């Protein structure tokens, strides 16, 4: 296969994903609601960053692979397009080619007990369907699976010579850990500068961090609105999108702040009018879904939850954050606070990286702040540490008198536990607990 063909193959899925989102954008555009408009804005930001990556590949311009928890503000400051190697399971899991890809992942021979969100990107890498960047920032947090993804990437002949740097996440969460991780981030910047030719300008970083702070301040305000009864928004708009906008495509970008402003307005309008998430169904159960959305079958499940049970997803793991603002007074404070944010604040890393405290303390806080009626730990097959925390979560919930359900499923592959089975379990739970 010549270079041109290899590039095309590497971009094939990525382009398909971009087109899938373009399609979603069109669909969203047809919705005349303010929430529909928010989706349009989000998808535009998403598409723009994906298109930039495609252009970089086509024109041999520098771009990198990185993650939402490797201080994306730095990439914006360096004006460096980037993409997440694990994008597809999170974003494109509803795409029509996913089943084929899941099958491909199985045929590779990797144990099927390894997280699907790890196996899918490995499949793309091993089958040459992942765009090859100028450099890779690898993720070693929060779980064992991510560590192995980087190693298989390195082992792959086509990626073997792509420069790789993985910031090492300490297990503790104190000042010493933050300082250590800040040093790792500084190493990361040097690494990126060396391999992409881009330079980090501290003043530009300050601008980006200040913009990021503005986004987060708005996000925090918006989250306060979700405490309202009824909650103004459900699964369709809120945390998942907010997280995508703020961390996944372009951190610290005025378009993001603008999006949050609009999100806030949307929310405020609804709260003022006393409107709940779903105009046709009254809010009966306020749910905490303690993980990311089941992207592989979200459309088959989430609307059902609302319609069948009046169960509103008031809060989920990715909508919840204690993002303290970044102190932009100096280079040192910025690196310090970026380290803190990316080590201890960003969702999932926050709960799963270290000891189990954040599982229980987050549940307690969220249940209280958001008047949660039931906590669901979806029990995704890849969350081995979470699976071993189920007992602690159960006891925590018992301690605060809130019903707890541990399902056991695959967020991306509906063949693991069928949607019907999940619905059954949830229904039994609600009935058993006298909810809804």
């Amino acid at each position, binding site marked *: 296969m010549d270079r041109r063909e290899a590039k095309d193959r590497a971009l094939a899925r990525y382009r398909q994903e971009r087109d899938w989102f373009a399609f979603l954008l069109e669909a969203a555009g047809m919705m005349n609601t303010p929430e529909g408009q928010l989706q349009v804005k989000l998808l535009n930001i998403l598409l723009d960053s994906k298109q930039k990556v495609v252009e970089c590949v086509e024109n041999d311009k520098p771009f990198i692979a990185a993650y939402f928890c490797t201080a994306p503000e730095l990439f914006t400051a360096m004006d460096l397009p980037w993409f997440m190697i694990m994008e597809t399971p999170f974003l494109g899991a509803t795409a029509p080619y996913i089943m084929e890809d899941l099958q491909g992942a*199985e045929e590779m021979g990797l144990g099927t007990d390894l997280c699907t969100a790890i196996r899918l990107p490995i499949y793309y890498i091993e089958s040459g369907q992942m765009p090859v960047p100028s450099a890779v920032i690898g993720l070693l947090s929060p779980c064992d699976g991510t560590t192995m993804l980087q190693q298989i990437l390195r082992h792959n002949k086509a990626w073997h010579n792509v420069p790789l740097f993985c910031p090492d996440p300490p297990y503790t969460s104190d000042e010493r850990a933050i300082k250590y991780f800040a040093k790792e981030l500084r190493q990361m910047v040097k690494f990126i500068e060396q391999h992409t030719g881009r330079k980090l300008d501290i003043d530009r970083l300050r601008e980006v961090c200040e913009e990021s702070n503005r986004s987060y301040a708005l996000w925090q305000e918006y989250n306060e609105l979700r405490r309202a009864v009824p909650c103004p928004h459900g699964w369709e708009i809120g945390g998942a999108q907010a997280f995508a906008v703020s961390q996944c495509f372009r951190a610290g970008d005025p378009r993001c702040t603008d999006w949050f402003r609009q999100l806030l307005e949307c929310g405020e309008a609804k709260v003022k009018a006393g409107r709940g998430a779903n105009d046709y169904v009254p809010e009966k159960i306020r749910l905490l879904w303690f993980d990311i959305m089941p992207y592989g079958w979200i459309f088959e499940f989430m609307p059902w939850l609302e319609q069948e049970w009046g169960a509103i997803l008031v809060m989920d793991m990715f909508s919840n954050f204690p993002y303290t603002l970044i102190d932009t007074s100096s280079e040192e404070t910025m690196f310090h606070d970026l380290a803190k944010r990316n080590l201890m604040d960003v969702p999932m890393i926050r709960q799963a990286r270290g000891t189990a405290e954040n599982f229980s303390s987050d549940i307690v806080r969220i249940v209280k702040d958001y008047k949660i009626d039931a906590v669901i730990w979806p029990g995704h097959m890849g969350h081995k540490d979470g699976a071993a925390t189920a007992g602690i979560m159960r006891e925590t919930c018992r301690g605060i008198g809130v019903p707890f359900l541990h399902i056991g499923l695959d967020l991306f592959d509906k063949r693991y536990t069928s949607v019907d089975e999940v619905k059954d379990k949830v229904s039994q739970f609600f009935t058993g607990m006298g909810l809804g």
Partner: protein
Amino acid sequence: MLVGGCDVGSTTGKAVILDGASIVSHFILPSTTNPEKTARLAMDEAVKMAGLGSLADLRYVVGTGYGRLKVPFANENVSEITCHARGAHWLNPAVRTVVDIGGQDCKVMSLDKNGKVLEFAMNDRCAAGTGRFFEAMARVLGCGLDGISSLENQGANPATITSQCSVFAESEVVTLINEGIDLPSIIAGINNAVANRINSMVRRIGLTKELALTGGCSKNEGLAQALEKKLGVTVTLLPQDPQIAGAVGAALIAGEKANHQ
């Protein structure tokens, strides 16, 4: 020179007697709960059918299968992986991939041009993709194993059965029946589900033509058809009952060992 191969499986016991390059006799019987008894019954019958006086007329016997350690008259035992591969290859030298679907396990072997196993994968931890699975399904549908196997019963639009586990797959099938899905679609769906599982195993090993099916479930035409669709190749037929492939392989190895002595 007469040699014997005895394949003691969980569901059936098979015995083959070879004389040089021809199969003199073979016999299949349902397994008893005692592997030693099963082995004796199978072998004794094969001996009788061959017109021989007794087991002692066989120069060498190789035992294989799940109960291979309990074949008292065997000179040695060899794994069923090696035996199925040898047997299938001898029956059709073009075979390079063997899929053995037995009573309670299924395996895939890839062979070199001499019938030697290069790589293998086994599923012997759960019922999905084995004879047990089909038995359970036949019970639920009330149609018997023939009902699931025959080509004319395979619907054009197989129902989707997503569960990886045969226990959950059973409840899925019950649900389908209750929803009024027609029997042919469900039957095709069951064969499709097993074909999917086998397909994954084959892909992990790598598919090289020709591919042959052995073991009891290889006689399921519906499954063969579903497999052909999934794998994109025609299943090559063996000139003998594919269920005896393991015993044939064992007998062949017995012949080699006898020659060496």
